[in-house]
């Protein structure tokens, strides 16, 4: 086991690193799909995110299995698995946003704040792309500071948009269930960037965990 790992390049480790890359690509894909589908109000396209969520779950389980089989030193394992969990959670939140979106009967609030939601979706997409960039930078051993700062910036931007949305939706008269469903949609879509920010922090921790 050990000699293979040292002399043949750590097959399990390479598999985990490839799986993480796939996982991040799925996150970007899901963010992009949501943005496009929301922009075009395309319900069949937006349902594709549920399939991406399934793929994300599968990848997280595969990462767990490889780690259980002995990939990486114990000092790295918890953070690597935690990273995949957080990325998976971000994809889950996008899926939850999709269900909220599909459950909205009236589009009164949505039409009022559509521009804001679209902006949040765009910023989520940017944040996910930067998370991918942060991961690639981690592999290269370069400085992560600038990239993770950008991720934090997107998250703050989204938080301020959320407050604006809440302020504007007060003026729209709708059914209570519509309001609840919309608030749920808002919370879910906003939490995607929170989770991406958490994942960025974990990358920073992984980067210093052997130091």
């Amino acid at each position: 086991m050990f000699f293979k790992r040292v002399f043949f390049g750590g097959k399990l480790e390479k598999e985990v690193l490839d799986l993480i890359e796939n996982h991040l690509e799925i996150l970007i894909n899901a963010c992009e799909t949501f943005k496009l589908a929301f922009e075009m109000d395309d319900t069949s396209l937006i349902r594709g995110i549920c399939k991406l969520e399934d793929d994300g779950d599968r990848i997280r389980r595969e990462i767990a299995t490889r780690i259980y089989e002995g990939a990486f030193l114990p000092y790295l394992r918890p953070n690597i698995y935690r990273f995949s969990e957080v990325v998976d959670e971000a994809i889950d939140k996008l899926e939850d946003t999709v269900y909220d979106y599909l459950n909205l009967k009236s589009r009164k609030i949505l039409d009022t704040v559509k521009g804001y939601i679209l902006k949040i979706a765009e910023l989520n997409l940017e944040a996910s792309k930067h998370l991918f960039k942060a991961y690639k930078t981690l592999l290269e051993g370069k400085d992560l500071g600038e990239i993770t700062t950008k991720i934090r910036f997107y998250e703050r931007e989204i938080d301020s948009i959320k407050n604006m949305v809440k302020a504007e939706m007060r003026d729209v008269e709708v059914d209570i269930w519509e309001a609840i469903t919309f608030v749920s949609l808002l919370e879910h879509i906003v939490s995607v960037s929170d989770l991406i920010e958490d994942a960025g922090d974990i990358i920073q921790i992984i980067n210093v965990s052997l130091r």
Partner: protein
Amino acid sequence: MIEAILIACVAIAFSIGSNDTSNAFGICIGCGLLKFKTALILLLVFVLIGISLQGYGVMRTVGKELVGLNSKSLTLSLTVATLVILTSNWLRFPLSSHQVIIGSLVGSALALNLPINIQTLTKVIVSWMTSPATSFILSILTYRILEKTLLRLSVFFTERILSTLLLLSAVIIAYNIGANELATAMGAVVYSGLNPIHAGIIGSAFLFLGALTLSHRVIGTVKGISALDVVSGFSAQFGAGLSVWIFTTLGMPVSTTYCIVGGIAGVGFLKGVETVRVDLIERIVLSWILAPTSSFTICLILGKVI
């Protein structure tokens, strides 16, 4: 008479196997880098290489230069040493086999009016004090070098290299177990007439048996120490390995365990003095004093009485 001495020596070799395997491979097994069986095979191979290539220096110091020996003193000192080592293991307060053996030999020699080479004895005692200090310094140097080189690279590349370095330091310790610890145990019996090659093979076999049957308990304990980060752990182990190897080359019997403690104290010192556990240091100092003095005193009394 040689049979009785040989039995005592193999019992000590068995004890070294059961206690000190964790010094070499505990971290590698704890990290999941090596399976227990693979570690045992590596231990056997490198112990044999160690005792074959460099064991003669320590054997000569213990078996020829330190004290004058006769069959009575040998039987007494090695029997007492074996009993002290086994009892301390049973009480879960393991003592350094080197110190117990040296204490016994000197105590027996004094009781039976055999010559004691004060110069060699002084060198041995100075080695016991300077070897952990050497390890302390070497561990700090190792940590600093890693900090300036390896730790600046990508984390996953660093992880791969560290895995290899951990195996390297484990192998150095296994080599030292053969060249120093086993050589200390077998030194007296070799200078009583047993062929050194036979002594090396018999000693290694019993050390292997000790590791096979009892070492998993100690390795289980070492797993609990993995709170020490991997770079610090490696630096401490590697510094200790180098330190023991230097003293082995000088023919001095020194304790790997104390050197590892010296190494851990070194990296602890780098990371802040408050990280060093005072209660543990007290226990180690107690063991350091108790090991040679208890065996010395018992042999001195028994030597006078018998």
